[in-house]
């Protein structure tokens, strides 16, 4: 058969297809029969329906129903059942035949992937079967049968053979697929790896050697569960998970655009951390952020929460059109709401109907209308509870002095001295009041509904000056209906509050799936749907659709508790697997979609620095408050519009705060954050990249903050083990940095460095920037400190140090 095909002259595609079929390379389902509804129709929808579907039938061809595929178009039947080689459809997508041009057209879309073509071939060669009731889509209702728009199912965990492995229903879904592919899951990671992984995932920090020791020695059957619960209860949990949310909220401490002036919106950041720590149900979290100001008797916290959509940029460049940039901000609010909550690329429909998803341009501006009628004020967020405030007492004092002064004024006698004295005391009291205000309140940016709503129009071709048809607030037809509540304001039929409640309604098919998928992504490095920000027709299908629905249901069943979902995931056997590579699975499951192991993941930018500060014993645990200015290389600020702008490096504890508290200038982010893929905060970031660059290497090797950390780590070591021999010190460094003992080859490699450094340091004058000789134990020379600072520096630069395994 192979030879026969070779002689037919379509060597390359045929070979690829054959390899795919026989070796199942890269295809999850190669072993399973192809299913038209599940595999073929969505594939055609994503790639062909735009021109050959319900709305358009180029060349008289429509591919949105099995019958019309067989009937074909102007060139004849698109498919010859059981003969993929003779099928025009295959010749078109392979693009190598003369009789039909390449599809989709080169200038409109990318060619189909080899595995997609292979899938089509397998469907055709198996007889091109489709269900009896397969009907063409109605025009304008296109694509609404996409999987993610369907109600969330309540799937039961499938039966599996190896029931002992199943620690959570999650595992049944994963194992069923593995067993179908005849793959064994990986063994559980060892306890040291587990506690380091779990700590980094849940609280973003390294465990201490004592914590590692205690967990390894804990023989109680629920030792792991206890660890999970301890970490979930830690206030550090809010810092770790809050930061991931701040990525999506595009939080920054400056306005962006040209001038990029500073802004105060950190109370919103603290609101987010607090929300995660008290496990504010995600539906409530959503409602408060999108429409907290519209809640009845809104609390200060709920008003602060609306800062979510104030994290848009502001252009205060001279001569710019304020309306133009207000519109840009509203567009960003629509896009962000679409991507973050629904995994829909709303932004694509700004200038024209969405090319793939059933979102029309009108839908875009109907969503726009929700965000078009707010003022954007600053708000004094209270930092202390009202009953703890010193302001009322202070104000009372002021009015007392003022009254006394008035009384004195009324008497026209010679009370000059008393008047002067009283005036001075009044002034002092007023100053005191200002000081109290500064302590008890912080300015933050919020949304406030206008009394007179703005009118909203479709912007023709996305240009804000070209007004098209007027529209009002509404949600797309293919999603559950929006229910107006009683407190809708004025002429707007439905409010932002209605929109927020609609997003987190139980029957919304997207939000629970999108949010559950993103939690999964954080624990495995990729979601069950890898395009976590696109659940539309151009997105990827879930690797485990039933598991995704089970997770979404679980989230709803637990009243949107994210902590409960996190707990469920980390308690699964799937999560606890070792991350060791399995070369034998590479050809059949290149990207570990089947989850036959955990993934090894480089830490996020902030966490790398946090880890170095932890190892060095420097990390501050102070939470909340205005953003801080840890050291950064000189000259960074000179690249801005405002070269005079200073980065006044924080002193004391603030120098060593967790990375998430670092002040974020949009136009000149701290280079460390930028180098390690922290988002730029211009648009919502739902998934960080994990790059690997020489600039990162230079940063960790030479940056002042890391040099300081390595020297302080050495000092910590030499103080802990002043008389220690080399192996003992090396072991201790491994425990602090990697949480484990070194292997003998590793110890030998480090010992060699120690020896070489000792020799070299005898010839040179010891130079340490951050340690003085007085700080060292008596038994340790400065030369020896240099040796260990070098070793510590190497440890902080290991791949394993910046990786969670």
């Amino acid at each position, binding site marked *: 058969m192979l030879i026969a095909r070779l002689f037919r002259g379509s060597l390359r595609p045929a070979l690829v297809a054959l390899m795919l079929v026989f070796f199942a390379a890269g295809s999850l389902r190669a072993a399973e029969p192809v299913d038209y509804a599940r595999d073929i129709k969505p594939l055609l929808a994503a790639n062909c329906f735009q021109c050959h579907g319900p709305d358009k039938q180029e060349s008289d061809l429509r591919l949105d129903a099995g019958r019309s595929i067989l009937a074909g178009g102007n060139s004849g039947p698109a498919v010859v059942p059981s003969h993929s080689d003779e099928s025009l459809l295959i010749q078109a997508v392979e693009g190598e035949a003369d009789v039909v041009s390449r599809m989709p057209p*080169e200038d409109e879309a*990318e060619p189909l992937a080899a595995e997609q073509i292979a899938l089509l071939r397998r469907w055709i060669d198996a007889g091109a079967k489709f269900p009896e009731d397969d009907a063409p889509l109605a025009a304008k209702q296109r694509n609404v049968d996409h999987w993610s728009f369907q109600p969330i199912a309540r799937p039961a965990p499938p039966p599996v053979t190896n029931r002992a492995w199943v620690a959570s229903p999650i595992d049944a879904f994963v194992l069923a697929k593995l067993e179908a592919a005849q793959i064994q899951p990986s063994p559980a990671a060892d306890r040291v790896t587990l506690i380091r992984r779990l700590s980094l995932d849940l609280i973003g920090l390294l465990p201490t050697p004592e914590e590692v020791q205690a967990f390894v020695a804990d023989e109680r059957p629920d030792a792991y569960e206890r660890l999970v619960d301890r970490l979930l209860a830690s206030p550090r949990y809010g810092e770790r998970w809050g930061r991931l949310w701040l990525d999506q909220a595009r939080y920054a401490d400056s306005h*962006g655009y040209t001038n*990029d002036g500073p802004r105060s919106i950190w109370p919103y950041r603290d609101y987010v951390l607090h929300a995660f720590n008290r496990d504010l149900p995600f539906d409530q979290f959503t409602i408060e952020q999108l429409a907290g100001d519209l809640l009845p008797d809104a609390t200060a916290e709920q008003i602060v929460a609306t800062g979510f959509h104030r994290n848009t940029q502001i252009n205060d*460049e*001279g*001569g710019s059109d304020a309306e133009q940039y207000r519109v840009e901000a509203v567009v960003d609010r629509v896009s962000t709401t679409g*991507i973050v909550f629904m995994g829909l*690329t709303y932004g694509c429909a700004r200038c024209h109907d969405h*090319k*793939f998803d059933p979102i029309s341009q009108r839908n875009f501006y109907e969503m726009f209308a929700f965000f078009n009628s707010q003022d954007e004020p600053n708000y004094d967020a209270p930092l202390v509870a009202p009953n703890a405030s010193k302001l009322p007492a202070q104000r009372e004092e002021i009015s007392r002095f003022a009254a006394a002064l008035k009384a004195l004024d009324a008497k026209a006698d010679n009370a000059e001295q008393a008047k002067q004295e009283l005036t001075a005391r009044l002034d002092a009291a007023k100053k005191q009041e200002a000081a109290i205000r500064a302590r008890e309140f912080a300015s933050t940016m919020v949304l406030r509904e206008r009394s007179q709503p703005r009118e909203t129009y479709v912007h023709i071709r996305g240009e804000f000056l070209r007004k098209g048809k007027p529209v009002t607030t509404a949600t797309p037809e293919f999603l559950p209906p929006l229910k107006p509540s009683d407190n809708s304001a004025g002429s707007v039929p439905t409010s932002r509050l209605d929109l927020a409640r609609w997003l987190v309604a139980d029957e919304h098919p997207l939000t629970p799936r999108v949010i559950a998928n993103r939690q999964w992504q954080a624990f495995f490095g990729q979601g069950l749907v890898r395009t976590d920000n696109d659940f*539309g027709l*151009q997105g990827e299908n879930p690797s485990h659709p039933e598991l995704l629905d089970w997770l979404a249901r679980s989230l709803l069943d637990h009243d949107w508790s994210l902590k409960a979902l996190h707990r469920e995931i980390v308690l699964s056997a799937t999560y606890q697997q070792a*991350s060791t590579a399995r*070369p034998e699975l590479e050809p059949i499951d290149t990207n570990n979609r089947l989850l036959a192991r955990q993934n*090894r993941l*480089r830490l996020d930018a902030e966490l790398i620095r946090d880890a170095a500060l932890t190892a060095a014993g420097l990390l501050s645990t102070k939470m909340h408050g205005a953003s801080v200015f840890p050291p950064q290389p000189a*000259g960074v600020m*000179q*690249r*801005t*519009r*405002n*070269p005079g702008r200073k980065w006044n490096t924080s002193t004391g504890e603030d120098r060593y705060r967790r990375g998430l508290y670092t002040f974020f200038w949009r*136009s000149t982010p701290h*280079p460390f954050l*930028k180098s390690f*893929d922290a988002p*730029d905060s211009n*648009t919502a970031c739902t998934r960080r*990249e994990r790059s*690997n*660059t*020489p*600039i990162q*290497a*230079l*940063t960790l*090797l*030479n940056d*002042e903050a890391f*040099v300081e950390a390595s020297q302080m780590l050495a000092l910590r070591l030499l103080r802990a083990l002043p008389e220690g021999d080399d192996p003992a010190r090396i072991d201790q460094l491994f425990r602090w940095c990697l949480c484990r003992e070194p292997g003998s080859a*590793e110890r030998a*490699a*480090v010992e*060699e*460095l120690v020896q070489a450094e000792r020799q*070299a340091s005898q010839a040179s004058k*010891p*130079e*340490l*920037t951050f340690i003085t000789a007085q700080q060292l134990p008596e038994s340790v020379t400065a030369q020896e400190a*240099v040796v260990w600072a*070098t070793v510590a520096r*190497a440890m902080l*630069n*290991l*791949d*394993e140090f910046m990786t969670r*395994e």
Partner: protein
Amino acid sequence: MPHLPLELRQYLTNAARRDFLYHCGLGLGSLALGAMQAQAAAPATSNPTAPRPPHFPAKAKGVIQLFMAGGPSQLELFDYKPKLQALHGKPVPQSYLEGKRFAFLKPNATLLGTKRKFAQHGASGAELSELLPHTAKIADDIAIVRTMHTDNFNHGPAKLIAQTGFQNFGAPTFGSWLLYGLGSESENLPGYVVLLSGPRGPRGGAYLWSNGFLPSHLQGTPLRSSGEPILNLANPAGVDAARQERTVQTIARLNALRHAVTGDDEIAARTASYELAFRMQTSAPELVDISDETQETLDLYGVKPGESSFAHNVLLARRLIERGVRCVTLFHTDWDHHGGGENLEGYLDKLCRETDQPCSALVQDLKRRGMLDDTLVVWGGEFGRTPMGEVRATVGRDHHIDAYTIWLAGGGVRGGQTLGATDELGFYSEDGSDRHHVHDLHATTLHLMGLDHERLTFKHQGRNFKITDVAGEVIQPLVG
């Protein structure tokens, strides 16, 4: 590795690189060997910016963008309008203003004739102002385009259009697209380098060399004009090259041991990054050390050693291209001559003195070194200036997006021609004259680099993005 033949550079990027480095003693020989021994059967690392073949044979291998940030006045430099001088001080004919918006102009603004004298230069007769005596010398090497237009009259967004094709943040810049499409031929330096000069950074900041939604290793690396050329390039106090090498060597050994345990190839890539970083610590200082340039070359550019300047950056650009860097973008501020401090009087003269000579020197220098044929040079800003004057303390003009001038040289560009003509007041392109959008410029420059702008795509948020969005046509007379 100054200007090695392509084959050799490609050779250096393949898996044999470690061997080569070892035998030739280039930097981390012993380190590479140590890592290899420890790694045993571990797979070779791949360089994410290794050269890749173009879509079709390229004319240019590298590009230098001379970006005049702020919007230089074409009416004082390239586009001579006697009629504007004749109507100086008169109101603008209403027909020119219908449906137009301007950033700062008041409705009562009047036409402003230039005070500058123009003359024709070279065999091609290019019309240039007296402010550009050095550019006059390369008149037959450059192609002037007088009918460029863009979409937004604010600096930040217009600069973004110029660099990314989009006025909103988040799209990749031209250099990132080039690296994405072609990789880099430089083994020891980043493939996309940015150089800044002038009184302040360009408006738009780091977005102007951002990778946008492309992978982060494709971002531009700004070289600083004074002090360390790259942040954190120098070893910290107390660390000499030998100590740094021992440290990196130990890191590589320990990484290799972990690689053996975990089987994760990302670890090998990490080690490769450390090796490149270590090589950059030598090659970047070598790059910026211009003591091997002759006095004659320094004089040609107008470089004074030890003084950071646009001229100095232009010389560095040539040195970067020599070393196989794919894209060098220079930003020089500030051409925003509204009147006031930045005006069309003394301030414009100063800017021209700073830039005219080095830009001309670059073309001459590339030419005599045989590098002009495959090095593309693009001069221009984010927009031009209005035919009307602004009523401010000194003479100036407002932002103008409907007709402005750029020039290109080398890299397959047909020099010695002036494309496009504007109307008699310089508002718009003359009837019947082709006008060219920034998208067309991007399509053209990519074309010269061997890339089809329609095929250079990246999928982001459900869409195949191109630097030219849904527009862009190659400007044929430039490349023909």
